[in-house]
């Protein structure tokens, strides 16, 4: 029993320390250098996955946009210490802010040209819209969950993204009055691609859909509308991993 008197408090103490640990959100607030480090990580990852995403590096403009957007402003206060980790984070309402690497690759796949007009279905935190806003003339973004849409609208306005318009509502019919769009990102895909969205994609335009779980992206689907209006898709694995396929390659 004597031994217990000494050992149990030690165990409880160790457990309490493990639970307490360094509290998230209390890390260094030098966000700019963290963002720079994150971008270096993304560049390295892109080189590793070059064969699978058909590019050795991302467009410099995309990387500049990623550098310009303060991701820590788009996460919950308690997650700011992890804002520049290359991982998804919860933002409430069962939604997540995507992994920065995926955001970068998706934006690059969409190839936003200067002066372009973009539509995003699924605003979430507004982070992807902010990245697009660095590259496009006009960004229209639709969010179905009202509190999220309100938060994103306020956040984007506060950060000075005047070229982003947030609307709360059904994304199925797109945004007819601002169509056609050069770029459409569907980050909240339903069970299928809504036909109205395809109609609102300008010939020669691109639509990108991340497909997978809430925190994970299994594939990126790139929908291309050729000048003749015909639609093809490319299914891209955003990671350097290819299963054996029988030695035919």
């Amino acid at each position, binding site marked *: 029993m004597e031994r217990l008197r000494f050992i149990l408090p030690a165990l409880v103490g160790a457990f309490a320390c493990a639970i307490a640990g360094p509290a998230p959100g209390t890390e260094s607030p030098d966000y700019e250098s963290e963002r720079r480090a994150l971008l270096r*990580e993304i560049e390295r990852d892109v080189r590793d996955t070059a064969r699978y995403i058909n590019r050795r590096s991302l467009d410099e403009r995309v990387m500049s946009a990623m550098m310009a957007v303060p991701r820590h402003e788009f996460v919950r206060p308690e997650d700011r210490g992890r804002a520049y980790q290359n991982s998804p984070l919860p933002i409430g309402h069962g939604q997540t802010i995507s992994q920065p690497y995926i955001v970068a690759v998706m934006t690059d796949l969409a190839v936003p040209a200067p002066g372009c007009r973009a539509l995003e279905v699924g605003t979430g935190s507004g982070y992807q819209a902010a990245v697009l806003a660095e590259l496009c003339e006009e960004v229209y973004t639709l969010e179905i969950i009202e509190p999220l849409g309100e938060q994103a609208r306020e956040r984007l306005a506060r950060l000075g993204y005047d070229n982003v318009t947030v609307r709360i509502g059904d994304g*199925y019919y797109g945004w007819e009055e601002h169509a056609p769009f050069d770029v459409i990102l569907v980050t909240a895909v*339903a069970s299928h691609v809504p036909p109205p969205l395809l109609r609102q994609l300008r010939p020669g335009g691109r639509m990108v859909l991340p497909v997978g*779980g809430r925190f994970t992206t299994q594939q990126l689907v790139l929908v291309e509308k050729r000048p003749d209006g015909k*639609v093809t898709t490319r299914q891209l694995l*955003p990671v350097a991993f290819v299963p054996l396929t029988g030695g035919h390659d």
Partner: protein
Amino acid sequence: MTDGRERPPLWSVALVSSAALAAEILLTRLFALVHWYHFAYMIISLALLGYGASGTFLAITQRRLLVRFRVAYLANLGGFAVLVIACPILARSLPFQAEQLLWDPWQPLWLALLFLVLSLPFFCTANAIGLALTAFRDRAGRTYAADLVGAGLGAVGVLGLLYALWPEDILRVVAGTGLLAVWVGAVELGVRSRFLPLLVALGLAALAGIPREALRLEPGPYKDLSQALQVAGTRVLLERSSPLGRVTVIESPQVPLRYAPGLSLNSTSEPPAQLGVFTDGEAMRAITAASDDPGRLAFLSGTTSALPYRLARPRDVLVPEAGGGMEILRALTQGAAEVDALELDPEVARLLTADFRDFTGNLAGRPGVSLHLAEARGFLAATDRRYDLIQLAPAGGPRGGLGGIGEDYVHTVEAFRLYLGHLAPGGFLSLTQSVQVPPRDGLKGVATAVAALESDGVVDPGSRLVMIRGWQTSTLLLKNGAVTPAEVERLREFCDELSFDLVWYPGMTRGEANVHNQLPGPWYYDALSSLLGPERGAFIAAYDFDIRPATDARPYFANFFRWKTLSAALAARERGGMALLEGGYLLLVATLLIAVAAGAVLILLPLGLFVPLRGVPRGRRWRVFAYFTAIGLAFLFVEIVFLHRLTLLVHHPTVALALVLATFLLAAGAGSAWAGRTDPGRSGRTLAAAAAAILLLGSAYALGLDALLPGAAAWPVPARAAVAAALLAPLAFFMGMPFPLALRELDEPLVPWAWGINGCASVVSAIIATLLAVDLGFDAVLWIALGIYALVPAVFPGRSERPVRGDAGRRINAAC
């Protein structure tokens, strides 16, 4: 206390034992709702952890507790009653989210805490029963019988209650049973207190008064239902509960659901009004409104799963999982005359036949449509009917990398053979699945189909297969006969029209693949060429995911985990590769690690501190360790194997669970009691005889059960259940003997160790059995268990030559 005048508190033991087993089953249900069904294994483990930790606790404290037996016994009964309702509420407040386990370093800690919190009620129950057994050691057999009978009744009772009450209300019943046990125990033990009945009455009143909302466990925030309810205007129309899950129906008038998975990008059709149906908050299916406008139902012909209707004009169609009725509707709109639809869950079936009958235009009652409450294999085994099309539902249930560790007997080689045997000449078996990148589901479907065709003697399976894919779904068709050139022509037209890709048809060339929905290469075509060629075995062995054909012995169609891929997937975790991690399997591994740590810290560490083994020879220590580990592992291995094998025999998971638990509890308990009456001088021989009987019966079942299954499948459920119980009881009887036979040979310091070691082995064995089954199959798990039983006599501890010191050993011996 044990002077013969007082009697053991049998009724209260039976009550608390039944409540504890009910709580165990209930928690698996509640956690399937909040998180995932994978937690069933965790609940089994944590319940056993509570029992194991209690063994250690009693070994250390029983001298003091027995002095105040009545108080200690009643306090533990009361503790169970309070904790069984408080702990799930407390667990709800822990920020554990299974989805975040893959990347959030805090989540394993929350999981471990959840594990410990939920084991507390079981710790109290085990304390109460252990104290009763020890205090009335002369009549331990009767107490033990009360414990087992109570547990058996609890298993059956809770499954019955799950049909009648909400799980939250059953939690009240369980806690109330615990309180009732306090009162009954007080009466049995002659405790005269004015306050106790008052306290129990107040407790019961408080239980009744707790609002359901306070007890209600909601699906986690990342479940499909929670997501759907975030949308403005979405509301729950109906919610029902059964042992098969909580069924929720929602409507979303402001933002219609528009459920049409796999719809072609070329389709311009928008589905009509729909209602969403969820089971345990996930796996949404849609109930589609009747529409007089054929254009509103055009979406049904714009998906890959419409393919069989374009290749042929199936007249007789079987829909093995009716769900919300979409496949019935598709069959009717495509011209089918007769549709047999099956639904195992009566609550889901009622949606079509009663609740939303008008909404669907009486879909289930239309001429030619028959909705049966049945599971596909049982239904087909009982009929000679043949179909032009059998339209299987996708396998796997929840997605997002967390499916996989759920047994699925609808998508196995044996099941496919049964379906093929019920196809009319020229008929099709159709399987539509999600397209995963890299390919997984689709290839496993092909591997399983090819194995089934070859088992049926088809020399060239490739001549009977057709497969297409969109960006979202793939559809595989197996034909009863060779695919004809005319069908190939219609296949090409269908794919051209809807921009689907050809994956396979007899005579297809590589250049035709990967045109509309381009993967980095023609991965599917290449993989099918390998799966249909002589290099199939090498291809499957080398593939980075587990695409071996699913079989009844290894019924994990939706599991693709391979250890060899883990390091690559982990390395790619932060580089977009998180989806490569098969979370279901890894969650099981995480649970195993937590169970090992918890067992070591809560069971073995206190024993090491308080029950030293000074003076016990090293060889004897190792024999005790090996023996009690072995029987702890082997017992649950066998129990888990039969739980799954009998699911296949009775064709109903709930009935199988109740049957296996009740039979094992009662028969093993009887075996245990009988072992206690055998000649103590011949324990070694008795054990050898029991082990031989286990080997004999187990081997007979391992070799002969498959032969019995097809024959019995057509019998009515009660007959199948009776056969299952009759098969199981003798084996369980003998399996109940090794533990008490060895325990009575041990002296004091080793007895609590034996309990503890056995408890630890039990805590981990259910999880290990499942992990082994995923990799090696249930047959292998059974053979491993039988191998362990074969070796058990070799490490039987035998009687020590040292005299027994003190009476703790005898007390606990008496307890078993």
